[in-house]
């Protein structure tokens, strides 16, 4: 987790992000679509402002639109890869480890014995990209749900089965 950037650069190698399993490539597309959707309002606003200002002769057409749209494009092209690279998980003997984020880095471990229940979920975008999301629920108020996106549906289901075998009802 304290790797220099160059080590993380060698993406999909088994030593990705310090021995963690990377999420599927489809996940990258999910992030990309999510980023694009997030950028859409800005892009639309930029176009409207640009046209309105140009109409009144304050600026030339494109002076607002072009930089904003370029920024959006850059974000859509470059960001998802970086974001995706920070995701990683490790399915241990008795615990699941999920690592995410670079600027705000979070490294979560959930012991299987403490799981309450498990969901495998797929949204429309995820289905289009061929990935699924594993959501584990713990009894904790903090980390009540821990989500691991970007798994193949088969992996997600296999993981769920493995975890289910471990769940003991020691909470109640």
């Amino acid at each position, binding site marked *: 987790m304290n790797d220099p950037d160059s080590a993380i650069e060698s993406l999909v190698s088994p030593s990705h992000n310090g021995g963690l399993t990377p999420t599927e490539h489809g996940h990258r597309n999910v992030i990309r679509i999510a980023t694009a959707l997030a950028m859409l309002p800005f892009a639309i606003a930029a176009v409207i402002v640009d046209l309105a200002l140009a109409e009144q002769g304050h600026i030339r057409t494109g002076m607002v639109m072009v930089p904003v749209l370029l920024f959006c494009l850059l974000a859509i092209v470059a960001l998802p890869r970086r974001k995706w690279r920070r995701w990683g998980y490790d399915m241990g003997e008795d615990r699941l480890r999920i690592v995410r984020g670079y600027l705000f880095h979070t490294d979560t471990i959930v012991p299987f014995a403490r799981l309450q229940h498990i969901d495998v979920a797929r949204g429309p975008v995820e289905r289009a990209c061929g990935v699924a999301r594993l959501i584990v629920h713990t009894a904790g*108020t903090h980390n009540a749900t821990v989500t691991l996106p970007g798994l193949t549906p088969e992996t997600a289901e296999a993981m769920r089965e493995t975890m289910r075998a471990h769940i003991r009802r020691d909470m109640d």
Partner: protein
Amino acid sequence: MADAAAIGQPSALTGAEEPPRRLHPLGLLLRLLLALPQLIFAYIAIGFSKGLSSVPEFVPALIALACIAILGMGWLAWRRFSYRLGEDELRIESGILSRNARSIPYARIQDVNIEQKPLSRLLGLALVRLETGSGGGEDGELRYVSLDEAERLREQIRRRKSGVILASTAPDAEAGASPQEQEGHLVFAMDLRRVLTAGLFNFSLAILAVIGAAIQNLDFLIPDTFFDPRRWIAVMSGQQWLLQLGVWSQILGFVALLVSLVIIGIFTGVLRTLLRDYGFRLERTETGFRRRRGLLTLTDVSLPLKRIQAAMIVTGPVRRALGWWSLKFQSLARDGKNETNHLAATLARRDEIDAILAEPGIPWAVNDGDMLRIDPAYWRIPPLLIAPFVLLGALLGTTYGDGRLILLVLLIPLVALILFLGWRYCRYALDHGQLYVRQGFWQQRLTILPLAKVQSVDLKSGPVDRLLGLCNVVMGVAGGSGISPLTIHCMKQADALALREDLLGRG
């Protein structure tokens, strides 16, 4: 739903199913009495705005009508409300037109809490609140049954939960229930003197807010000129002695204000604590703790040992010097409406705390000296981070505004001092399967968390933390507040990783 089932009729069944029961009819009267102040208030308000003599004649009639409506609707609701103890669930049916049948499985009922406000005490009624721990919503409320019935219900639910149906209740189902309930042995109690002492530490200025709100609502009672400074200037200017005081009068006035605030604060604290904690008794029952307290509003709360997640020992600089601590338990259920944690002792000596902690088996067995400190970056870095902004602000302020804004610079050492004091008290230790985390300077809180209750562990680090090779360890624990989870700040990454292994390894 049979009409035959009425309150007070002994249960003829010895089996699991009981016939449906109704709430206590006196509850209707209580509801009316509780609604009355508002009606009277409305009457007075109308009276004052029109002048008491000229209240329109239909107003009293209207109020009488409202009373009848409350009674009528209440009676209908009462007719259509029933609850029954089923084989493995409590069923509550309610609703005048749209019916609602709720079933609460005994296995899901965490607590049965009994509350008696002053009026309900007069009428011998109690409010029964069923806690299922479903996010603190309205789970199940029996708004007014008799106190005996409340205690019988709690006993029955507790027994049914553990799978024992009390077959022998049949002969004396109604009245015999409460003597049968085994009295637990006393673990901790506070006498009047202790309650008053606790009140001294419960400094509170909440009364000012209450007075403010009251003034706002009752301002029709206050003469219009009361808030007009010109009137006061006119009154005061007649007093020659005031004018001669000059600067000293300002200082004197300020001191007087401070002293009166302190007196008000202490008085409010003592009063609030007295109302809440009078007759504080914590007993150990078969399954857990039972706490009774209150001067006017009596509350009776049970806390099963199995539900306890962590213990929190809270003190402050003064209390600590005098050897006082208070004890709370973090549990899956909530303590009343506003409290997330269960108060087990408001003000207690170390040996009393130890005696309470012995019951759930969460010993406080670590010396402060053996606990580890966190990284001093905790107090050294934030002042450095805010320094550029504060300096810039002060510079701009003095250049373009008032020269006194240079005092803003004092913010930096102030923040450093506050964080430093906090850092000195921030410690942690891992010992005999328990994690101890101490934090806070003014509110010193020691959390004792058995490792078996750790649900998840996060290592979190922001950009600055990463530069310094630090991270925060955040524990997921059931119950408690979701806003501020148990966190050990500013640990070296290697230490944090090792700590996490220890935390999860034994769990």
